[in-house]
């Protein structure tokens, strides 16, 4: 090969590899908002529901999870927003209220959740008003969810935090290596925190959690560190190398069970991943306005005890 040809080939190879870029979307959050919610299980807001399906999802696997989801707007979170009631068929009162509700703000409390699943193509900036009507019906592009809901229009749905009968969640040995491998960049300004990442999936994971410390009461819930194992594997081989924060909501069956256990005990649970904003906040505090590339920090919302 002639020298010029060789160099051109090397250059093209490098160029091709460097231009294979992730389709990242940036979520810009107000720093004070992050600081307020990062160590909380839930959030309360007045949601104006723009759209929702007539009935809950069917139940099988993947997105057929038995939830009912609703798209809406609020004045606190100020992001494209979807809220979901877990096990919606168990909650006829809340379902009836949802169906008869007009386009009026309704008080809603639930677990806040950021996950890069329905990321769309446009960066999402907190404070930018959501379009009205919601652009894609009941499931618009969104990164912020209230999921699962704990109180809907005054109706307590905490008893929905139980196993979804017939639903097959992703096994830990598939879900956690995937969660652990999400790339992200985090950057802060004086007032905002920007998190950029690509498409993520696997909403529900079935795993065994080994309690690694004492649960900490954070007012609306408990946070505890836990090791993660596959329910079909052994307790000698965790599927994730790190301990993760596990988020329990007060008043739910998993939280009640947690309080009866000690360090080293295990629970077989259904979990939902969300971005760990405590880690994000700390990283931005230490790095000023420098951009940091890392694996997306996440924690698990414990949605149900599994047999």
């Amino acid at each position, binding site marked *: 090969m002639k020298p010029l040809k060789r160099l051109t080939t090397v250059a093209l*190879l490098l160029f091709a*590899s460097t231009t294979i870029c992730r389709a990242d979307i940036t979520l810009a959050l107000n720093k004070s908002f992050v600081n307020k919610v990062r160590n909380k299980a839930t959030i309360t807001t007045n949601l104006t529901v723009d759209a929702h399906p007539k009935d809950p999802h069917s139940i099988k696997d*993947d997105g057929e999870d038995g939830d009912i989801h609703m798209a809406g707007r609020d004045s606190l979170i100020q992001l494209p927003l979807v809220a979901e009631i877990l096990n919606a068929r168990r909650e006829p009162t809340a379902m009836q209220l949802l169906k008869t509700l007009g386009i009026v703000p309704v008080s809603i409390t639930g677990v806040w959740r950021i996950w890069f699943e329905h990321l769309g193509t446009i960066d999402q900036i907190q404070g930018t008003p959501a379009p009205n009507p919601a652009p894609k019906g009941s499931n618009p592009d969104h990164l912020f969810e209230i*999921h699962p809901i704990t109180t809907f229009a005054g109706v307590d749905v905490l008893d929905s935090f139980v196993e979804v009968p017939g639903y097959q969640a992703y096994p830990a040995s598939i879900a956690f290596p995937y969660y652990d491998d999400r790339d992200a960049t985090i950057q802060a300004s004086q007032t905002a925190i920007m998190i950029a990442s690509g498409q993520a999936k696997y909403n529900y994971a079935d795993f065994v959690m080994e309690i690694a410390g004492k649960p900490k009461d954070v007012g609306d819930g408990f946070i505890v560190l836990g090791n993660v194992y*596959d329910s*079909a594997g052994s307790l000698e081989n965790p599927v994730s190398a790190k301990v993760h924060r596990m988020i329990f909501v007060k008043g739910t069956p998993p939280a009640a069970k947690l309080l009866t256990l000690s360090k080293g005990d295990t629970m077989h649970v259904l979990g939902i991943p969300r971005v760990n904003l405590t880690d994000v906040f700390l990283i931005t505090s230490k790095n000023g*306005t420098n951009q940091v590339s*890392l694996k997306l920090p996440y924690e698990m919302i414990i949605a149900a005890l599994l047999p």
Partner: protein
Amino acid sequence: MSGIFGSTVLDVAIGLVFVYLLLALLCTSANELVAALTKSRPKLLKKGITQLLDNQPTDLAKDDSGAFINEFYRHPLVTGMMNGSKHPAYLPSRTFATVVIDLLTREKAGRKEISDLENGLATIPSGDLKHALLALVQSAEDLESAQKAIEGWYEDAMDRVSGWYKRRTQAWTVVVALLITVLANADTIHVARRLWRDPVLRSAVVEEAKSRAQKPRPSVSVEYPDPDDPTNPTVVTNEGNTVSADERALLGQVLGWQGSLADNTSRDWFERILGWLITILAICLGAPFWFDILNKFMNVRSAGKSPDEAAKKPEKRKLAPADKSA
């Protein structure tokens, strides 16, 4: 192996990516040193605050345009954030607004109202701060909303400070990359040529690159040192951020000034400068970027996942489609 993926071209590309990765790591370390030595963040914060509070005399020092800002820096809430005489790197907006309001309403003891702030503004001599605050508080119904307006004004200014800091950091990254490139003569064209022609060196570089690909991605991560306190983590940098002695030694073999510069033709210099520019651009892309590229190339080279990647991925027990809904 046959074709391009088993060829010298791929190994040369791996060598270049590896060199870029090491240089980017060195650049990051040097940048951190520069930031610590120049104390740029506190300096820029001071500059931002000065823009807001300068050119404002007080009723006690009517001819001194720096009187208000001097009083600001003597306020106990601000001195409490200083380490001796060192300016803080961060000043919360609430503290800023509280101090400004306190200085303007110091005549009033006890609980303060919006009227006290308006009186305070009316009595201080004309200045930039007075004009700005009059515009900010004219629509405030109470002291709390006035405080919020001042906090918002300060936060807007701090976003500008962040912009300055970011630009300065980027500028320093380019300067440091330039210095490293020129001092080490990290000329991409020359390095590629050397790797192409020297199979022993190429092989050594690829072997070292393999070891590097087994290390963690240069990154920060968060750990929870106290298992009983899941709300109090600490940041740790991993071993992927350091350049080992073996890697430094190898860099010494690949880079450096060789031969007499007097023999260089204008074509040599043109190539060298072009090679430097490519290297500088590459360094500016950052170490995590080149680490990811290196892993991709290594995967291609071994016609599959790298051993650590393979170990990380469990056997697929069930293949489910991607989620369709929230």
